[in-house]
């Protein structure tokens, strides 16, 4: 079916989220919807799925105007959503999870007709080569398969229009390739697909048409055959962007961080880091690649002193820190940019100025040990805001009201304000706009050139390849390979991430 959204406008208090947005996709076409966080993609999709009502504009399906007042109507109209966060009941098997809410029933009591449902799931799975075992339990399935169950769910409800919201966020490069194959197959059979992402490579690869959103408006619609990454980035940001990280060759010196036979358990007591050995030298950037949930989080927490080490040793400049507190480790010159900046990196309800001194508030000149020196704190904040180009109305603005990029700049500015010997940056550019990514990378390279050892943990291959002087890949709690930066290619690292040795 042909889908068209015409002049959609949606206003929230203080924000114009969608400003006369028009997009369209023909039957069997893959529309790539590209935009940064806050560009209005989610609002637009929530309107399409019936969660929000647009202030003005119309939704046309096969040229017929439709209005949805709740998600059920959107589903009945043939629109299927595959959300970034899966909506599956973990203890159900695939048939139950797929049929939930659209069960076929039989008998006088209307009991669930599993046989019919199972047959249909199997048929769909085969038709679109989804390769899903209908009897497997959801919680036993890997994420890539769970996503295919979500797609099955939409197909089961006879969706002719499939909306995929950042589908590759949780996938390995290999699984992403598989997903693209499925998308192409679905499109060939006549399904209209809207593929939402912020990754340039992906839209170029899979979309038949690309619409770029910027600040709630359509910045442009382009043909992927004629588009380049640079052109798309320009449309997304509104200016030219440096997509590669400019840096000279690394000059590694003495070892700063050394991990030997490190074992760390996760919250549930499972061994998340399983015998990791790694060295990082002063003057080099080691990029640690890997799909989310392969022990990177626990590894980082162990290094910075937030998680107990089960066995093995962590040394910084030859000094064992296995039993040190976070503050003792920070005092050795460790700058830590945490993975989840809203949870761990910032206090949203405190001001920008207060966030700058979150780890130095107890020191001169910010306090004399008892009393805070507001003047010194404000002066420091004013300088940092300027140095790191933090866009904030004032240093007394709540940090939580800044954009993601500016929040991250606050974190980075704070961490780099102390003498830095070792940088531990986990997903430092997650959710940031292209311009901020460029800026954060530049600062990381700067630290390296000033002689710090830098560890960047990332799930984004682009980032890993762009910044890493060496690339290590973590999988299942182990380092499955270390590749020299010059030898690191998409294929090589991607294969290691996917578990193919």
């Amino acid at each position, binding site marked *: 079916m042909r889908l068209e959204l015409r002049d959609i406008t949606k206003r929230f208090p203080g924000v114009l989220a969608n400003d006369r947005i028009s997009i369209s996709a023909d039957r069997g076409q893959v529309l790539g919807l590209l935009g940064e966080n806050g560009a209005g993609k989610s609002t637009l999709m929530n309107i399409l799925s019936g969660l929000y009502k647009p202030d003005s504009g119309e939704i046309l399906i096969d040229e017929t105007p439709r209005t949805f007042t709740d998600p059920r109507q959107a589903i009945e109209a043939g629109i299927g959503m595959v959300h970034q*966060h899966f909506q599956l009941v973990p203890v159900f098997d695939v048939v139950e999870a797929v049929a939930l809410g659209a069960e076929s029933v039989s008998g006088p009591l209307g009991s669930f007709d599993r046989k019919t449902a199972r047959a249909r799931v199997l048929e769909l799975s085969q038709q679109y080569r989804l390769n899903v075992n209908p009897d497997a339990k959801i919680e036993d399935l890997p994420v890539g398969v769970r996503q295919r169950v979500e797609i099955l769910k939409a197909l089961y409800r006879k969706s002719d229009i499939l909306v995929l919201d950042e589908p590759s966020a949780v996938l390995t490069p290999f699984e992403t390739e598989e997903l693209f194959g499925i998308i192409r197959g679905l499109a060939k059979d006549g399904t209209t697909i809207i593929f939402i992402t912020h990754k340039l490579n992906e839209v170029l690869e899979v979309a038949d048409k690309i619409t770029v959103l910027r600040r709630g408006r359509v910045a442009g619609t382009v043909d992927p055959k004629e588009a380049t990454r640079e052109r798309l980035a320009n449309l997304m940001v509104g200016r030219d962007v440096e997509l590669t990280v400019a840096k000279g060759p690394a000059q590694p010196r003495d070892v700063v961080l050394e991990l030997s036979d490190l074992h760390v358990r996760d919250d549930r007591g499972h061994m998340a880091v399983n015998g990791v050995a790694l060295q990082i030298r002063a003057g080099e950037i080691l990029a640690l690649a890997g799909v989310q949930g392969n022990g990177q989080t626990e590894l980082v927490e162990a290094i910075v002193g*937030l998680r107990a080490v089960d066995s093995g040793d962590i040394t910084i400049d030859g000094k064992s820190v296995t039993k040190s*507190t976070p*503050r003792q480790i920070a005092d050795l010159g460790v700058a*830590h940019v945490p993975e989840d900046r*809203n949870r761990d990196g*910032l206090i949203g309800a405190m001001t920008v100025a207060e966030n700058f001194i*979150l780890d130095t508030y107890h020191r001169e000149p910010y306090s004399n040990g*008892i*009393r805070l020196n507001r003047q010194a704190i404000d002066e420091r904040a004013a300088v940092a805001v300027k140095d790191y180009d933090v866009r904030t109305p004032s240093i007394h603005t709540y940090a939580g009201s800044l954009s993601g990029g500016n929040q991250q700049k606050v974190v980075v500015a704070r961490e780099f304000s102390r003498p830095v010997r070792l940088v531990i940056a986990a997903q430092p550019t997650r959710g940031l706009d292209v311009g901020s990514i460029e800026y954060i990378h530049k600062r990381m390279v700067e630290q390296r050139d000033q002689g710090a050892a830098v560890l960047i943990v990332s799930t984004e291959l682009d980032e890993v390849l762009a910044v890493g002087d060496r690339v290590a890949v973590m999988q299942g709690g182990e380092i499955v390979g270390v590749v020299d930066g010059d030898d690191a290619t998409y294929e090589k690292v991607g294969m290691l991430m996917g578990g193919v040795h």
Partner: protein
Amino acid sequence: MSRATRALRPAVTPILAIVTAFIVGSIFILITDFNNLSKLGTDPAAAIGGALGLIGQAYYAMVTGALGDPDKVGTAITSPTARSVATAIRPLTETLVAASPLIFCGLAVAISFRSGVFNIGVEGQYVLGAFGATVVAILLKDTVPAAVILVAATIGGVLTGALWGFIPGFLKAKAGAHEVITTIMLNYVAAQVVLFGLRSDFLRKAGSSEPISKVLDFVRVPVLIPLPALRLHWGFVLALAMAVVVSWFLFKTTKGFELRASGFNMHAARYAGMSATGSIILAMTLSGGLAALGGSMAVLGDVTQMSNDISTGVGFTAIALALLAGNRPLGIVVASLLFGALSNGGHLMGIKTGIPADLIIFIEALVIMFVAAPGLIRWLYRFDATRMPKRFDDNAAAKEGSAA
């Protein structure tokens, strides 16, 4: 935006909540006013007039009961004698007496809430603080000068309450016991400890079979105004001083910074190298100590005799007050004065109009309800939500972040 509007902004919702509560309160007076309601069919004009008159009388009595009777103030000005002046200002001083324990307890609640722990045990800490002060006072009776007894008893009371706050803090920090549960339970324990203690011959009033202590007539917090029948004492000044101290502590010191940081976002505080467990224990201990200071002042100043009636639920009212004030120390003083005035003025209203003093509790409850549901107030008065100060909810912010 000027300084004044910025300072007043957080007060918009509470003020509208109070106004609304009084309006709804008058409806309550109307529908329980059977005298006038029964006349509605036969003489509607008189019925409506009578009803409106009653509302006016009731609120007028409430105001004079809380602040003072203009006639008596007039008499005091034209012929100032000790007695006439005391009579004129007595309602006002009684309002301040009623407000003092609320200020102490409200500050105690606020310090814990600001630190991200929910001390529901202020009531128990208040009562036990009063008890501790009583024990020390009776122990020291006739051994040292009264002034020394006063200081020692106050310190003893504060330490008892601080200990009563430390226990749940320690349990949470070291064993993960949820402080809401433990503090609620410790309220009961505190009440029983007091009852048990007051049954001993050492503490119990001679010849009494009731659990009430000996009269502490040998030690007394000095009164502020030396006129007959005025109870207002230096405890009120101490309460105001504590508001300043708590404000200074929370916003100007490193420890206060740690407590607030942990309170807003324990994860980020931990990542920044702060000790989360230390903050929890410190916050609970300080909170308990503040509440107990209030209890000590009450037993050594207001009533001079310990019993379980020392608190009329101030520890629970204080939770509502802290909410009303958004955990701001100055706001707590203002809110406590308001609640003190309401309960004090309510007595006179009850005597003069026959409207049950329970109306006061009704109005207090409405105020709290409207403050707890700011959306309701915004809807009622149609003011723009986006112009309201942004309320921060770390959980929501974190969720947004991880969803992005």
